[in-house]
């Protein structure tokens, strides 16, 4: 058993359940033709990142990759505003400008999701510099996938973090696939944490089907990072479904999928809770139902929300008060209009 004990596991369960429900509802949003596009990357199978998020403190910051919904939920983001953003609506987190791959919430230290594989990784180094220079006790965590671990920028970022002893953690969610490419066809040495160790970081791999293990490891890794020893942790898990909404994973064996889906941190947590008699079936079903209801409400909210007025496209290119871009129609009017 682990630090926080059974109560904590129940908490993890609730978070993971909320993540799974959210993702299932995103799917529904798409099926109802209400999502902005089809570039929807669900994190089902990766719910134990809840353990990392639980180890983070208020004030800590993070960046995520394109598959970040679960991380936002676990850090306390509002599912309604997330769902609205995924639908490209006006009251979404990014006013309908970002969508699924670009959710952000500065109030939660969420420095933004990134659709460039590896793109958000170096940002945590800079966050670490900010915290060091201003003597703040925070850690910054970069979440990314196993595929991103082949991008050079990770090594640049890890080296700088280690060289400057920054409060930074690199969290690699190894769901075994980058699109259709399995980790062993992408990385010559799939033990990714070994590379981090060779770069001078604190590195380890943890079993993602056990949220308590993930949480324990994260406590250690984040704790060390807070004290100037940056870390790298790999969460070993499995991407239950396709890469994005329209991918049916024809490149993997059915049998592999069946095995892979057994690495289910949510089901495992449920089993443990029952075995330890921390919760009974009814209690867990209540949690499940609450999560479903919450996420259903988020979909309804998003569907009902308004699309952003077309003119808002010119906002937020630059800060408020700075000269905005000149709309094309305005430019044409200057050339052809009356006053020319």
């Amino acid at each position: 058993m682990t630090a926080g004990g059974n109560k904590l596991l129940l908490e993890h369960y609730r978070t993971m359940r909320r993540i799974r429900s959210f993702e299932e509802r995103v799917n529904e949003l798409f099926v109802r033709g209400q999502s902005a596009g089809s570039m929807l990357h669900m994190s089902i199978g990766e719910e134990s990142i809840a353990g990392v998020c639980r180890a983070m403190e208020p004030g800590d910051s993070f960046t995520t990759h394109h598959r970040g919904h679960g991380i936002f939920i676990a850090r306390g983001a509002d599912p309604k505003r997330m769902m609205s953003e995924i639908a490209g609506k006006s009251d979404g987190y990014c006013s309908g400008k970002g969508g699924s791959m670009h959710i952000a919430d500065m109030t939660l230290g969420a420095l933004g999701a990134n659709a460039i594989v590896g793109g958000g990784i170096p940002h945590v180094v800079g966050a670490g510099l900010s915290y060091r220079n201003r003597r703040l006790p925070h850690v910054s965590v970069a979440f990314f996938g196993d595929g991103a671990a082949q991008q050079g920028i990770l090594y640049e970022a890890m080296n700088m973090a280690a060289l400057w002893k920054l409060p930074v953690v690199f969290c690699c969610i190894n769901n075994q696939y980058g699109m259709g490419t399995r980790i062993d066809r992408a990385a010559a040495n799939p033990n990714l944490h070994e590379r981090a160790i060779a770069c001078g970081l604190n590195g380890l791999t943890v079993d993602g089907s056990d949220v308590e293990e993930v949480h324990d490891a994260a406590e250690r890794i984040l704790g060390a990072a807070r004290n100037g020893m940056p870390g790298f942790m790999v969460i070993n898990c499995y991407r239950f479904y396709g890469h994005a909404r329209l991918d049916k994973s024809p490149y993997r064996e059915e049998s592999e999928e069946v095995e892979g889906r057994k690495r289910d941190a949510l089901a495992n947590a449920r089993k443990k809770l029952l075995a330890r008699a921390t919760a009974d079936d009814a209690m867990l079903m209540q949690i499940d139902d609450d999560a479903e209801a919450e996420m259903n409400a988020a979909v309804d909210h998003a569907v009902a929300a308004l699309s952003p007025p077309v003119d808002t496209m010119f906002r937020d290119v630059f800060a408020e008060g700075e000269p905005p871009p000149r709309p094309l129609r305005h430019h044409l009017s200057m050339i052809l209009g009356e006053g020319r």
Partner: protein
Amino acid sequence: MAAVETTYREALRQALIEAMTEDETVFVMGEEVGRYGGAYGVTKGLLEMFGENRVIDTPIAEAGIVGAAVGAAMTGSRPVVELMYIDFAGLTMDQVANQAAKSRYMFGGQIGVPMVLRMQGGTGRSAAAQHSQSLESWFTHVPGLRVVMPATVNDAYHLLRIALKCPDPVIFIEHKGLYVRKGTLDTERPDGAWGQSVIRREGADLTIVTYSRMVFEALAAAETLSAQGVSAEVIDIRCLNPLDDETLIRSVTKTGRAMVVTESVMTSGFAAELSARISERCFEHLEEPVLRVAGEDIPIPVSPALERGAVPSPQLIAETALWLVRRIAPSWAA
């Protein structure tokens, strides 16, 4: 072979298959080009046909991939790299602009880099700011690169075939909105020579110069215009650099009015180059300034309505053309 109806995607695929069959040194590499068949399906089936050595699934490492292609091209191979999205070009610009493009020159002509860098750009899928860009002008600003952007099915095939024989690096930019588009492929009859601008529709009142997906938006606009008695000539430049400007100049000399249409953002976009060239060479024939109808100077927003609003539509092209030719101001010009 007679002309057949097919898609842009299939035409590209066929060009690759033929080139790989003909020339053993051609190989394809990139993320998901093998088992997955390419993010947009262009390389589907190639792995089965040509094997793992010639259809190479790479790790996600764009700079390294392009760099590897440069080295392969220097040593007798003819690599085709699929970059998946033009938006990832930023990761590769050093290898593209400082290595692929300049090697022949820096090394005094000793080393050629015959490679093709395929990628796709543009809007239309609510793919947001990092998956919807039109960055061709980054490449046209680099001496040593050939930049090609096919619009039609026939060009998709022919231009790729020629690119795969070019002794220099070719940046081959497709459009995500065109893959499923149907058209006629005639493997014997290219739409025009390599490097040549092609008149897609003849007209007398103004010249619309464009490329890639916007060719079809311009043609749709020309249709609308014709119903209103305005006859627009639509030119598809196909090869951006080097540019066949003579065709444009002849046309504008005839029509006296020119509009350049691009999906890319206006400032420093290729529309500026086209506008400048036409103004330079047709000065005495121009009745009106050369207009640019280009993407708004903003990142591409995810909301479908906003996304559509960020790039030119047939309606906008037609309204602006009417204004230019007939001085009929559109509704939005208050």
